[in-house]
């Protein structure tokens, strides 16, 4: 779906129109093959059997999970800090948006703002939490930062549960829908748009000089400091950006799924799901998680509908795959892809 390395100036200038298009695409993180893959995914719901409502629902979930994996990998794969409170921050976005757009009299506030506006406010709120979390975990290295984020995540979930007047706590409440329809197709394009937006925005950042700084502090913080990078600043920027998109996705989820409880969005196991996807997809690639998300959701939903006597089997599979990837193939699917691509290229050149 994308090119791994940053495009050099020389490449951008040289070559004809085709090269120029390729360079522009690479800047936003796409290879020509990636574009093709994306178009295929976008057209899927128009062809049977994908045009059935329940399968379109899987597609929406695929895009939603994929976008989450992208935003998660932006932190984990670049500055090498696992944001273990990711789901909770996504939940902050979801709840902010849901409460602000609420019109139901079951809660004390009924601002009733349009969801299209509130999901952005939710994103900002999540970004603010991300900013604070970034500040908080600044001086902490690796595992300390991850555990701190985890605790903050649990605390946020605790808060959401403990403010029943705003959130109805674990009883859950139903935010108004984003679109005036119960069809999944429009939602799918919104979700896909969000995936694209998340991916392109974050990709633009990582392809810029800032991305180099992220990778530098993620790989060797002492050397990064000695090279003039202020780790504090970049870490906070990274956390904030990643959380803004998490919040945005949370808002979308709230208004799509139409029912919200702290456990179903903010629980640690939700973070782990995204984490597993991002790592299986290939850490530091960003597109890996998104690409893997679709087949995974299909696989899982297939299992769920056909093997309903085995609840949670898909989670076990997630776990096993995560373990296998971590031990034997840390590059994940993205590395597999680039190895194969390189081999094909070499063979094409040789033959």
């Amino acid at each position, binding site marked *: 779906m994308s090119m791994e390395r940053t495009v050099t100036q020389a490449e951008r200038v040289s070559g004809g129109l085709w090269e120029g298009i390729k360079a522009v695409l690479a800047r936003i993180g796409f290879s020509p093959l990636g574009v093709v893959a994306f178009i295929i995914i976008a057209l899927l719901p128009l062809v049977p059997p994908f045009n059935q409502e329940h399968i379109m629902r899987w597609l929406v979930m695929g895009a939603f999970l994929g976008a989450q994996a992208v935003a998660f990998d932006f932190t984990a794969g670049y500055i*090498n800090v696992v944001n273990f409170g990711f789901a909770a921050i996504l939940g902050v976005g979801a709840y902010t948006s849901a409460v602000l757009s609420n019109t139901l009299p079951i809660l004390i506030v009924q601002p009733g703002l349009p969801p299209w506006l509130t999901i952005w406010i939710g994103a900002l709120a999540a970004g603010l939490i991300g900013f604070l979390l970034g500040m908080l975990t600044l001086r902490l290295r690796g595992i300390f930062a991850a555990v701190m984020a985890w605790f903050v995540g649990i605390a946020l979930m605790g808060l959401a549960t403990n403010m029943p007047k705003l959130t109805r706590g674990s009883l859950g409440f139903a935010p108004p829908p984003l679109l005036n329809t119960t069809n999944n197709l429009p939602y799918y394009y919104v979700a896909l748009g969000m995936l694209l937006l998340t991916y392109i925005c974050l990709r633009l950042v990582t392809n810029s000089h800032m991305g180099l700084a992220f990778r530098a502090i993620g790989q060797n913080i002492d050397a990064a400091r000695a090279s003039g990078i202020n780790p504090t600043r970049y870490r906070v920027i990274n956390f904030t950006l990643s959380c803004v998109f998490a919040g945005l996705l949370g808002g979308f989820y709230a208004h799509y799924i139409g029912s919200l409880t702290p456990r179903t969005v903010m629980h640690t*196991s939700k973070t*782990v799901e995204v984490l597993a996807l991002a790592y299986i997809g290939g850490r530091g690639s960003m597109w890996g998680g998104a690409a893997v998300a679709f087949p995974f959701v299909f696989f899982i939903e297939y299992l769920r509908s056909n093997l309903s006597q*085995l609840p949670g089997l898909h989670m076990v599979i997630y*776990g096993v795959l995560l373990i296998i990837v971590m*031990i034997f193939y840390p590059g994940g699917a993205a590395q597999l892809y680039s190895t194969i691509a390189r081999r094909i290229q070499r063979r094409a050149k040789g033959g």
Partner: protein
Amino acid sequence: MEATRVQPSFLERVMLNMRARPAAWIVIAMTLGFLVIIGIFAGPSQLINTIVTGGMWALMAVGLALVFGVMNIPHFAHGDSFMIGAYVAYFVFTPIQAYLRDNPNPFLSAVGPLIGWIAAALVGFVAGAVMEKLVFYPLRMRTRRGWVMNTFLLTVGISFVLVYGANLILGPNFRGVPNYWNVPPIVIGSVRLTMERIAAFVVAIVAIVAFWIFLSNTRTGRAIRAVAQDEMGAEMVGINLNFIYTLTFALATAMAALAGASLLFMFPAYPTVGLKPLYFAWYVVMLVGLGNVQGAIVGGFIVAVLQTLTQQFFGVSYEDVVPVVVMILVLLLVPNGIFGSEVKGIQEQ
């Protein structure tokens, strides 16, 4: 066991540690003070509750600290060892109970729970050894770069497999044993002490003390501490690192399983039962300093006191919120934890 004492006694060590760390003094003094306050304002039964809980958190945290100190693994699946212990105790004890219903036997009904606990510890031990050999050993053979983070993610994976595996095989139902013994609670003044509560506390204390003696006075225990301090030095004197790693992980798992088994009357067995103990064990080790085993023992009680205070003043539902605030303050004031953390290789990332 050694005939001669070869190291400063526990008390001496603690004192030494204290002198170097005034923060620890203050915290311990405050904890004792809070205990008195709890005793006065919330009543003696709350006080006893706190102490019992403290013993359990200490037992959980010791394993966590040990695994981190010796192997540098931030163990996220430690709570699932607790869950394993709870299930094993349930499945061993229930048949005994059923048998007793038909054939009353005072001796068996007295030791029945004991069998359950020992079985839980044994299964935990084996499960830990298997986990180490199956997961961490291959990773260690492949690479040790980024070890702390990679093993953390591995334990996340293990946790997923165990939790949902349990869910798959045993289902989401609660399986509890309301009481181990059919004896009336002991009443001292206004305090009612159930046998289970006393037993859980005794188990925790016995396990911790036994473990402490093992660590400080036996050849193998000394080898474990040696590996925690200097791996190459340990290899130089002929210690087989792989054996020590497996043993350490197995021991830590066994302790968590034991905790799960002895608390079965409070926490019935279900797939995600380990989450809370895990959370509190991590709370303890982050507070006292990662990898600090002595600190973890004291820390268990500190956290129990904090927990009771939270319940008293904010309500049970804030149990998850307050720790974060406490932890932020601690990490801001004493970044290495109140008892300090001297773990090899933690600087790695």
